[in-house]
């Protein structure tokens, strides 16, 4: 049995006609790092919300099919139990700050207070999580005084400290500057390397190509492609549908028609592109 298991999932938000997700079948094994790509409106966020339990528990609407994460069924559990299973981090770092706490340390402890973790254990877990994400030096700062990248790492740490079994990320770097993006991606990579199951919606194709185990392309609420980064990101099926494609792939595709790219497949990373063009 897969760790994450979605079977025939179709979902409609309240007061809408067209389903946001249509007949999604998805299996993710423990420890996999899966990237979700697709144009805006393809259903990436909805899928993230579904994995994290907010669809249907928070947004209501109509969900059919079955959603199972780490042996738990979404329709048989309430949201506050589900969030211990799957942690969610989304785009806007500012809106993820609880607003109830005055220091980063307190902010990260907030979730543990809510679920009744004893004080001594709480402190140990907060410190450990901050070390892991490299924000120990921010402990006494106000969460509102931080940069976007720092805030997003605080948001990530606040979720990781709850020790969810799956980490769900909805474009966590889309609102960040280059250094913030680098900081946040650094933490995500660490988590993936430590064997955490990570499912992340993301536009930054070059990064996905380098680090994800698997890429799923969503289009109009359906899974269009599911495979290795190279299989998916170089596929002609993505063309003209609003998908972001790496410049390496698209320039090699043009070079191929000019006879300047001679390899079988197209490149997705700098390495592959450099390699392929050198030998041409």
């Amino acid at each position, binding site marked *: 049995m897969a760790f994450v298991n979605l079977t025939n999932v179709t979902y409609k938000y309240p007061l809408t006609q067209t389903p946001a997700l249509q007949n999604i079948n998805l299996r993710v094994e423990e420890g996999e790092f899966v990237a979700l790509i*697709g*144009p*805006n*409106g393809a259903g990436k966020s909805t899928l993230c919300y579904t994995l994290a339990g907010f669809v249907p528990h928070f947004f209501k609407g109509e969900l059919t099919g079955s959603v199972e994460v780490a042996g738990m069924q979404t329709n048989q559990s309430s949201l506050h139990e589900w969030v211990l299973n799957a942690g969610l981090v989304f*785009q806007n770092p500012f809106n993820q700050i609880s607003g109830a706490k005055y220091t980063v340390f307190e902010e990260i402890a907030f979730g543990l207070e809510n679920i009744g973790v004893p004080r001594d254990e709480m402190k140990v877990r907060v410190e450990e999580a901050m070390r892991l994400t490299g924000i120990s030096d921010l402990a006494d700062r106000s969460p509102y005084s931080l*940069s*976007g990248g720092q805030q997003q790492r605080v948001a990530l740490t606040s979720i990781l400290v709850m020790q969810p079994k799956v980490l769900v990320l909805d*474009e966590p770097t*889309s*609102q*960040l*500057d*280059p*250094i*913030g*993006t*680098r900081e946040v991606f650094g933490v995500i990579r660490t988590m993936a390397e430590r064997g955490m199951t990570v499912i992340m919606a993301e*536009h930054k194709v*070059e990064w996905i190509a380098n680090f994800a185990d698997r890429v799923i392309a969503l289009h109009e609420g359906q899974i269009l492609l599911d495979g290795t980064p190279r299989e998916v990101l170089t596929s002609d099926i993505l063309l003209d549908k*609003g*998908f*972001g*494609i*790496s*410049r*390496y792939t*698209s*320039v090699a595709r*043009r*070079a191929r028609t*000019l006879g*300047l790219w001679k390899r079988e497949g197209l490149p997705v990373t*700098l390495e592959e*592109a*450099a390699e392929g*063009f*050198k030998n*041409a």
Partner: protein
Amino acid sequence: MNIEISDLHFTYPSGVQALRGISLTIEAGEQVGIVGQNGAGKTTLVRHLNGLLHPTAGEVKIGDWDTRKYSVAKLAARVGYVFQNPDDQLFSRDVRTEVAFGPKNLGYPKEQVEALVSEALEMTELADKTEANPYDLSPTWRKMVAIASVIAMDTPIVIFDEPTTGQDAASVARIANVIRVLRERGKTVITITHDIDFCAENFERVIAMSQGRILLDGKANDVLGQEEILAATYVDPPQLARLGRRLGFKETVRNEEEFLAALKNMSA
């Protein structure tokens, strides 16, 4: 209409020195991309161009206007400014009314407002959404409404603050197209962006800022090739520039055409 910035310093009331001596001339019709990490002073700089901020020291001139002597509402006739978050400016019941707000404020005659609005809607691919409520549109399309509402003001200078943030590939392509049309019409376009590939492909001139100063300023190819200096402001060169460097190209390339041309030269 030229932009003249001389020895511009700006300190926020909190005491933060955001700009420390910026001197810059931007000629009419130039396309300029500004890069650099948050806090480098990019937004503070462009907010001086339409008078939202006034220099602590130094001077900013838009054509023959010193920005200190004109209100923001007056300067709006010369400098259009698309804010980063469309939700900070949209309020009308339908797209057409929203887009007409700016040109009406500028006091253009009715027929001209109509014409400018229609043209802006066409350019932003919103022609089929004119009756929609902006709030019912997706964030991607709200962004286009915000862009249209500034374009319709027909200013000689247009500023975009992070236009591609949170946008998908199709939307980025639409925005690039708007910038191309503006260039063809001889408008000056100044764009703050973190998307370095977008910057390389759409702007001939690039300014890199760091800590309130200009780090680099010049032709995109020259600036974006300065890997070591750009690293100081955490900007990676564009993908194709990096690939070109790996392949030993002499020149820095900034788009697919240049890359392919350089590649042909190499193999020839």
